[in-house]
């Protein structure tokens, strides 16, 4: 046997949709059963049940003391994998070997009872995660100190602020001291300062004590800061396994379903203004490689493609766009006069491209508003507000940013590394 802390071999998990959703009552089960019998008798076929492989032939190993991140979009199987590994549900096929005590933290505050005091909940939560009473007693003071709730120990947790609640829950979790810790997205809660504290605690935990951590997160910065290796899951299968930056790249270059990178702007759009002499018909956001997507690394350049149809010849026009923050504040604007000559436009469809680079936008979500008007500023032909969305992820791909510290929680919409100098000290 190898000394891997976690070894997963050909793990698969099948969900039957009918089993999941339809047969909730006896009536449904009877109905389903009758259909089955009827089909067999009448058509000599079996009922075609919808099957869905949440995990398919997943194999990997995690060494003792390693921190491995799992990335992938929603529905890629991340949570199912963690559930199977933490024995909440059984695999359909495959095998896994876990060395040492396993604690899973799939949710902060699992089993907290709102009517019980903080003190009671520490004991209850500890026991739920498999700690003995004596072990909890030993760590009790540490937990209280870490959570900073000493004053409210005898208050029912339903009266806690959400911050206190999360702090207490994480404090218990952080002191479980398992050999293998399985964590799902718990860092998404709590304030920034506490998140930093948790990240620090988790780092200490593995570095100092040889614990193995498997971490799922959408927070790429956290994955990058914490993990030595990563697994990128895609449709229940392993899409990429190995270096963190490779996995993050694979994850980011994946086209987000439901948020199409090419947007057809229908004529009936409500947020549309203008006389309609020309209409912006479609909009596409492309990565540097020319593939449409709308998730970008920090300061990664992208291209905007606009399809404009002129319904009558335009003598002079201005085509432009703005990048807006989520609260509709305009961060930057540009129009085609930045680099194209002032000429007219015949009727028909015209394609424009603009390369958007060196914007230094902070990680977050942005929208794009597009407009076309005549040059006199009084004739607006078309304006579509917030017609496209894109996100900047809080991670830097290798070599692109020389100042990784810039991705710390620095406030502001733009994160531009600036050049500082220091004069020699004066006597």
């Amino acid at each position, binding site marked *: 046997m190898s000394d891997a802390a976690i070894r997963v071999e050909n793990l698969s998990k099948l969900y039957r949709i009918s089993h999941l959703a339809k047969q909730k*009552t006896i009536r449904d089960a009877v109905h389903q059963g009758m259909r089955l019998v009827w089909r067999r008798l009448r058509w000599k076929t079996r009922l075609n049940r919808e099957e869905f492989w949440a995990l398919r032939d997943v194999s990997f190993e995690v060494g003792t003391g390693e921190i491995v991140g799992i990335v992938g979009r929603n529905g890629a199987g991340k949570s199912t994998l963690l559930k199977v590994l933490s024995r909440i549900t059984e695999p*359909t096929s495959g095998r896994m070997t876990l*060395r040492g005590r396993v604690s899973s933290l*799939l949710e902060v505050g*699992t089993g907290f009872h709102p009517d*019980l005091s903080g003190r009671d909940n520490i004991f*209850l939560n500890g026991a739920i*995660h498999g700690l*003995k009473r004596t072990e909890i007693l030993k760590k009790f003071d540490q937990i209280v100190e870490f959570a900073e709730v000493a004053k409210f120990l005898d208050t029912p947790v339903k009266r806690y602020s959400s911050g206190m609640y999360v702090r207490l829950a994480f404090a218990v979790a952080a002191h479980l001291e398992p050999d293998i810790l399985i964590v799902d997205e718990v860092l998404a809660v709590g304030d920034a300062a506490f998140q930093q504290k948790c990240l620090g605690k988790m780092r200490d935990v593995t570095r100092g004590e040889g614990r193995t951590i498997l971490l799922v997160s959408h927070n790429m910065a956290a994955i990058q800061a914490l993990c030595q290796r990563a697994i990128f899951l895609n449709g229940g299968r392993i899409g990429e396994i190995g270096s963190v930056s490779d996995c993050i790249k694979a994850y980011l270059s994946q086209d987000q379903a439901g948020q199409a990178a090419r947007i057809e702007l229908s004529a009936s759009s409500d947020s549309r203004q203008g006389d309609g002499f020309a209409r912006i018909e479609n909009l596409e956001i492309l990565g540097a490689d020319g593939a449409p997507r709308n998730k970008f690394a920090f300061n990664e350049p992208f291209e905007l493609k606009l399809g404009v149809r002129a319904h009558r010849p335009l003598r002079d026009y201005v085509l432009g766009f703005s990048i807006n923050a989520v609260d509709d504040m305009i961060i930057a604007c540009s129009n085609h006069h930045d680099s194209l000559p002032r000429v007219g436009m015949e009727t028909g469809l015209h394609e424009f491209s603009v390369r958007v680079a060196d914007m230094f936008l902070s990680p977050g979500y942005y929208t794009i508003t597009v407009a076309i008007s005549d040059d006199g500023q009084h004739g607006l032909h078309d304006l579509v507000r917030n017609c496209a969305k894109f996100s900047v992820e809080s991670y830097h791909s290798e070599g692109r940013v020389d100042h990784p510290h810039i991705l710390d929680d620095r406030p502001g919409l733009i994160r531009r590394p600036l050049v500082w100098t220091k004069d020699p000290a004066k006597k």
Partner: protein
Amino acid sequence: MTNTALQSDANQDVLVIEAGRTEAHYWRDLWRYRELLGFLAWRDVKVRYQQTVLGIAWAVVQPLASVAIFTFVFGQLAKMPKGNEPYFVVVMAGQLAWQLFANTIGNTSGSLLSSAQLISKVYFPRLLVPLSTVLVALVDFTIVLVIYAAVAIWTGTFPGPDVVWLPFFIALTVLLAIGAGLWLAALTVRFRDFRIIVPFLLQIGIFATPVGYQTNYLRSWRGILDYNPMTGVIDAYRWSLFRGDTPFAWHSFCISLAWTAILLASGVWYFRRTEKTFADDF
């Protein structure tokens, strides 16, 4: 089915989970988590009796009210034959057993659904969830037992030496209820109808069981009634609590024992068969 093997290997537990095998160390796991059983039970009791006045009041008022109604309906209206003991005490002895049985079933059968959040987020042997609810039923039972003792002293209905068997009958009641409760708990996860079916069955059960009447004075229905798993139990309660010369009802009691064994064994079997996918069914 999953194979869980725990072997001690250089002070480390190695856990192997393989699809398509039966679990070898399930009971050992259950033993490891025994403290959690206590914690869950303690949580339920604490939450229930936290608003102490209301909590205890309910545990007192509810059985007393039904005893009063049963005494009136069966004793006064139906004029059921009674023995040497006051009818109120007879009904109360029956209610004692029935309430423990019904509460245990009610608590266990709904326990998995009310712990859905927990079950879908943490691993522990799922058997602990229904088992932990038994304590609340036992605490309620103790309260009613104290009231019964007070009433028995007040009416002078003292038990004979056979009362030493009462703890054994109490244990039998709990085991019988757990057996049925495990079935119902697992079935409730699968079919939500059981949330309605269980209270309905219990409502019927209280009439189909000699709570408000005594079996000794029934001739024609006795044969059928004996096959009710609770008949033997309630007869045994009354036998141990009253100093009467009624012989011990071996026939119904053996049927109760058989029911308990069958329900408990099959309940654990069905529960274990389904527990690994509980998390998928919520």
